């Protein structure tokens, strides 16, 4: 690990100011930064410690929704009774993520910014070609071991999967990322790679996530996060789905539905086509299965990740049927 200078920011303003410097990085829980610094992927010259800043770790709830401070720990949000009641999918996405030790360290803001687990991104000495790390250098993943790579939102430049769980749930409920001076919807916050895989989010230099706001909704209250993987715990999703559902008064016709996929795309993948196919329909196993298949529109596999195209719609369908009370 390269030597770096360490700055303990005395305020959010000072942290933002320092973060304007090229080569500087904010440090919160450190679970991504330290990991990638050890891999030689992140080589900050200055680390700006914001862990102690006050007023950024709160969780507040009212009838309109929830506001979660960027420094709130994953574990604290997962266990928060109010979050669990109003946004079960959010709570579940956190409980099913990482390990208890990591959830006790990692923050919500940092969680959104976690980097991909693409093996080729993580080993620069052996695989120098990576557009995400070094724009213009190529993509080592194409033609390599691709079991965990994305099938949606990919480009010729990058097929790395967005690995997180929380952002998948947040995207379902139109959550908004508060950057201090401006706000961006979670859906817009994450970028597909296109020709610029090094740009992963809308975050600009000198900006800092201060909070996440999630508007309350009936769909959010009746929601779930379903994560499918080979290992029961402590593994990234082979495919996941955050789903929220609100019925009409008849208790069977869909008024509002939210469907977002994780583990299969280069960003949290809102499947609006699935949602549109089901709004106004009476929920049944058949309608759900047919609609869920739409989630894979435009999917492209790269060898070993082909199974995701088959798996993901099944995960979506199960999650919808679950919140619909049909399984």
């Amino acid at each position, binding site marked *: *690990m*390269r*030597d770096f200078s360490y700055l303990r920011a005395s305020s959010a303003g000072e942290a933002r100011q320092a973060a304007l410097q090229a080569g500087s990085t904010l440090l919160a829980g450190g679970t991504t930064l330290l990991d990638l610094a050890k891999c*030689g992927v992140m080589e900050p010259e200055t680390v700006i410690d914001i862990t102690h800043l006050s007023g950024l770790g709160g969780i507040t709830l009212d009838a309109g929704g929830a506001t979660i401070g960027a420094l709130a720990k994953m574990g604290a949000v997962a266990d928060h009774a109010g979050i669990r009641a109003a946004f079960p999918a959010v709570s579940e996405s956190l409980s099913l993520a990482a390990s208890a030790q990591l959830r006790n360290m990692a923050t919500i803001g940092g969680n959104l910014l976690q980097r991909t*687990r693409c*093996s*080729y991104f993580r*080993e620069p*000495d*052996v*695989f120098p070609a990576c557009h995400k790390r070094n724009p213009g250098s190529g993509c080592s993943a194409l*033609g*390599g*071991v691709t*079991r965990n790579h994305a099938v949606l939102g990919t480009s010729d430049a990058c097929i790395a999967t967005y690995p997180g769980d929380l952002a998948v749930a947040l995207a379902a409920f139109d959550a908004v990322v508060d950057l201090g001076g401006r706000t961006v919807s979670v859906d817009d916050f994450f970028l597909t790679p296109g020709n610029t895989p090094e740009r992963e989010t809308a975050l600009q230099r000198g900006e800092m996530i201060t909070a996440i706001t999630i508007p309350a909704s009936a769909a959010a209250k009746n929601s779930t996060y379903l994560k*499918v*993987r*080979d*290992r*029961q*715990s*402590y*593994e990234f999703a*082979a495919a996941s789905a955050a789903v929220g559902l609100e019925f009409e008064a008849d208790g069977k016709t869909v008024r509002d539905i939210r469907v977002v996929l994780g583990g299969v795309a280069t960003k949290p993948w809102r499947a609006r086509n699935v949602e549109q196919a089901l709004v106004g329909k009476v929920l049944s196993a058949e309608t759900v299965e047919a609609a869920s298949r739409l989630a894979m529109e435009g999917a492209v596999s790269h060898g070993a990740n082909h*199974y995701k195209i*088959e*798996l993901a719609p*099944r*995960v979506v*369908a*199960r999650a919808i049927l679950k919140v619909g009370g049909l*399984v």
Partner: protein
Amino acid sequence: MTIMEPRKHGDASDGTVGGRQTRFEGNLKVTGGATYALEYPLEDLAYAILVQSTIPAGRVISVDAEKALAAPGVLMVLTPDDDMGLLVASDWGGNRPDNQPYYPLPRQVQYNGQSIAAVVAESREQAVEAARLICITYEKAPHVASFNDTAAGEGKVMDNLTAGWGDAEAALAAAPVQIEGEYSTPREYHVAMEPHGLTVKWDGDQITVWEPSQWSHGMARSYSEWFGIPYENVRLISPFIGGGFGSKGAALAHGAVAAFASRKLGRPVKLALTRPQNFTNYGGRAATRQRIKIGATEDGILQAIVHRGASETSTYADWPEQTGAATPILYRIENFSSQHRVVPVNAVTPGALRGPGKNPSAFGIESAMEELAYKLGMDPLELRLKNYADHDYQSGKPWSTRRLREALTEGAEAFGWSRRSHEPRSMRDGKTLIGWGIGCGTFPVLQAPSEAMIRILRNGRVEVVSGAIDMGQGTYTILAQTVAEVFGIPADQVEVHLGDSRLPGSAIAGGSMLAGSILGAVHKAATAARDELIGLALNDEKSPLRDTGANTLTFSGGRVAAPRDQGPSLTLSELMAALGRDEIEILRNTLPEGATAQEQHQAWTSMVKVQGPTMGEYSMHSWCAHFAEVRVDEDFGTVRVSRIVSAFDCGRLYNPRLVESQWRGGIIMGIGQALLEEGLVDQRNGRTVNSNMGDYLVPTNADVPHIEVISVGIPDYGASALGGKGVGEVGIVGVAPAIANAVFHATGKRVRDLPITLEKLI
């Protein structure tokens, strides 16, 4: 030398062999009091880090270390240009080429991730950063990434692993029922919690090595031979190991590099492999494949087994992972043919990983047996019992003990096998398919000579001293129990000293041979020490027991007395005080009488004196039968093991609590092997791309169900002095096929290539 503070706790700490004493060192480990090899706080330590090749094959043309040498804190860079003046050490068989130079950082690149250079600096961070500044220029050569590579070829037949009797091909052709399948297992790794590494220090031409070791004497020999110094000048210290699983039985190149750097710098050096380096600096289990054909009668009597297997090896050494190891001995079989090949690929030479050979072999034959059972429409339990081997058909010898029938029947009873519904996909719970499967396992009894010292101290305590290793399996504890039983004292009156090559010689903690071997020596030495004490007590004029007229003494309840209450009884300390003795020290070994010093050295530092399972008049093995229940999501293909019952014949259990722990540990590794573990190799450059614990998956607690283990063994005094057979490895053998068979029963899909990941079932 680490002195274990004795402790008495647990529910049956009576200190006798067979008691359920909890681990002597357990408290130290859970409180952080146990010092591991990389934790010794030496003054003036320098830190070494390895630099690895990023190509799979070729030659190092040059190493540009200029920038690294100029980096802060850097003390030294070692490259293939440095002749360290080392000589090749003996192999495990004690064979050693004459004066052959040894290059732990070779110029020839044989695999991706091979150590090419090393950087030593004032801090580990400085060494790591400087290592990234080293620029290596290669001349690349074509490579073979795996044995599935078309360029790999068929490999070479291992003649010593070719077996056959009867006329297998003819009997197969004539058999009315036949099945055939190809079974494969991927590269698997040890993934011990504690990484490999060492702390090393020279004093003149004396070297002290703190290194996790499954064999302190054998590894000390390597250091002495590399550096051309007398064996006595090496001291290898290893009181605790954070997991070995077969990987820590030999000194490795990184040890030579660190020791050389330490000598050259005149400073102690610490070298720890990074987690990714733990995937390439030594070999895991080789990838295997095997084709099995079985012929049977319509009522399920086996007629022939034809087995053809292969495993990957490196381009510079032949290490066979014997796919035919369990195949010939599990069942009664009159016509048998087996052959195994090794296929050289550009990978580090594979190594021993829990249950080598037997493990992938059992995956093949035990999967094939269930395929046959379903083809016959027969209960797989019935098929196994019907073909029970009354003797070893390979060696022709009778079993010493073989309670596999009891393992199958008692395991089935405990599991509730009789409630099974035969048809695949016939048991479900909503969207969850449920399946049951059986897998049998075996592991040979190996025996090696060992040595132990007993000291009876004036304070009444008894010390047992051995260079044997405790890597968590319970050596400290069972040695104390054995000595306590001989002297009739509580186990907390015994002190155990282990894990130091300066101490008496011992079998390796490998091949499941340590407990049976070392306890023979400990028991012999303890008995001799007790006899010595009896002689003194009956004859010494200062002894209060001299005039009892007894011709022997009893040792019970912490007291020494004449039989039938003739006279006084004394504690050991009272007796020692009366005799005016400070200590009685006895050294014994289990070599034949009159073994020379040279033979003793050879016995402790090589494998030449190890006895195989059929070298005597019997065929001796541990046995087990696993019963697994899986739950498979029919949409997602995810497999969860929900229940395991395993019944074992490992002879007498010296400490059932510790044995059960080893069995469970093996079963848990088997769950990982069945469902999760696989080294993923990029075919373009031979690199293992999931060489970390985030991507190479082993079971978490959530993946481990309730595991019920049952002992059906009886003492086997042919297998060892105290009647036990090996327990460490047999537990993993047969788990993967039990799970694969359960997955078939649940889903109707036969997965013949491990691991059984979800995409194979959707």
